[in-house]
């Protein structure tokens, strides 16, 4: 039997901080030499009953998940409107934000009716309408080479017991390309829709070869409101498996399991010579099996844990690239 039972989400969330109503969250990759621009939208169409003008403000978190500060309103969006923000420029308005190094950024897209409120009652359907309509484009660019890349994704309700009774992550990403000039990094964000969230989430993972062979196991811990980058090259190198992995074709799959929270995984396949970088999100299980979830998901996670993570001691000092 699963350790916990999945319950349906509520229809009304009381005492909700509206800054988390429709967040857009992403890491800066300044330590890799990229600037960040984001296209953020108020995607609910004017004819929808949930259409409302929204404001945008921004909070920066340091690498330990500590809140550095927030901007005042930096944009307003009518229903259906969108805006492209130069995040590096907007950071100037965050008191105490460092000029370099890793940061996690959260854009708060908030209905104007709730601006200034710290606690409101939110119909779940209204929140989900806005989350589903969001598909913010996070664009990374590098000068002077002209490299530009990015990924669109949603960061809806996560790691919030009011919205989901179970929180786990299975990450399956057949995108671990490791060759001489190329590394693949996995960006793992630990986010929540409540300000007092304080759970550090651990992800255990394997890098598997094309035939399913097990190359290396490792783990990473991600503090709340922070991001960690896991370099596949470094994980393989520290396990003494780099040359073998490359000799086998340099391609494989990242298979990760978190039992105590949801992490948002983004893969970054980067040519270290040119700076070109491929960003993409992974796909949740419902993209494969449309009705997947609930207790079936919990049982599957237990089987996965038994197969890959139960009979081995957790590695000490996870060999991952972690923002210093």
């Amino acid at each position, binding site marked *: 039997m699963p350790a916990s039972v999945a319950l349906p989400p509520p229809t009304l969330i009381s005492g909700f901080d509206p800054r988390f109503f429709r967040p857009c969250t992403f890491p800066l990759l300044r330590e890799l030499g990229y600037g960040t621009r984001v296209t953020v939208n108020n995607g609910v169409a004017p004819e929808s009953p949930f259409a409302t003008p929204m404001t945008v403000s921004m909070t920066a978190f340091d690498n330990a998940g500590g809140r550095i500060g927030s901007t005042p309103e930096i944009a307003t969006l009518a229903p259906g409107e969108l805006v492209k923000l130069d995040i590096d420029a907007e950071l100037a308005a965050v008191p105490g934000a460092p000029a370099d190094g890793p940061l996690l950024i959260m854009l708060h897209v908030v209905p104007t009716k709730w601006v200034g409120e710290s606690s409101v009652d939110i119909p779940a359907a209204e929140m989900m309408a806005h989350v589903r309509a969001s598909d913010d484009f996070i664009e990374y660019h590098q000068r002077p080479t002209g490299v530009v890349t990015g990924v669109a994704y949603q960061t809806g309700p996560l790691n919030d017991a009011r919205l989901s009774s179970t929180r786990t992550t299975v990450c399956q990403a057949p995108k671990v390309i490791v*060759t001489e000039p190329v590394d693949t990094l996995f960006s793992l964000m630990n986010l929540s829709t409540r300000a007092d969230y304080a759970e550090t989430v651990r992800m255990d993972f394997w890098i598997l070869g094309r*035939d399913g062979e097990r190359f290396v196991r490792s783990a990473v811990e991600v503090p709340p409101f922070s991001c960690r980058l896991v370099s596949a090259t470094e994980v393989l190198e520290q396990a003494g498996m780099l040359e073998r992995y490359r000799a086998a074709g340099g391609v494989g799959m990242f298979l990760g399991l978190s039992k105590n929270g949801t992490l948002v995984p983004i893969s970054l396949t980067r040519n270290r010579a040119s700076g*070109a970088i491929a960003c993409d999100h992974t796909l949740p299980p419902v993209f494969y099996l449309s*009705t997947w979830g609930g207790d079936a998901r919990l049982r599957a996670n237990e089987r996965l844990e038994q197969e890959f993570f139960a009979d081995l001691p957790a590695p000490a000092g996870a060999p991952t690239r972690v923002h210093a």
Partner: protein
Amino acid sequence: MAYTHYFIESEGLHSRIHLQNFYSTFWPQVREASVAHLLVHDRAGRAQGSATREIPPFGSLFLEISELLAEIGSSAAEGTVAIDLEPPAGVRAQFHELPSAEEAEIKTPFWMAYYDDTENYMYVHSIDTLAGEVFGASRLLRWSMTRSVAQGDRWHSWRLLDAELLSDLQVICINHSPEPRSTVVGVYSADTSRTLYERPVSLGPRALERVRVPPEELGSWSTRYPEIRHVRIGLEPLLTGNGKPYVIMRYADGPPSLHHG
């Protein structure tokens, strides 16, 4: 249901399929390989052939499109490939565990990696399915699910592109449906109040067209419309429900970027 991806073996770009045996993640106790069925069409929508590959438990298929085309005897430089991952018997025996099993759909999303000769990579995850086809279903269910392929709505990308930096912009419009369809490919101001470029496109079943916005057009926007800093791509309408285009673009003299719209 099979997802479909665009492939290109021209313009200095190559394509490679990335697909894991995802059944293993749900039922790791099953030690049987799954079989990937691949179906290739060229840019005109002509069927080029099919192939199969076994994927071991927890294994992944990394298949160069050039290898696939050679195997089926195709010289297509562009087209689409659809994949349906057939579950082994041991997995099918577990389907009783699927929540609302009678409503469940099994799909095969995968990634296409695009790269150039110096290993600059781009990725696109699956966008839309091979409309009008369902594998592994009864005849009646298949008829029910494929008799009508819905057209999408008017669509504008949620990504804004920097108008003055654009040096190349190509929109790959794909008709995933089994019948001819038409749309208009366009580039618009951020608020869509101004049309910068439009071109009607008519496509046969399974066909695609890569619409390259003339470079002289790109170069003229910042002088003709200096107030427009950002532009967005649009299709009116999407040819299938989620049939967003692929986009190849370049800022200044940087490397190309290939992404979904």
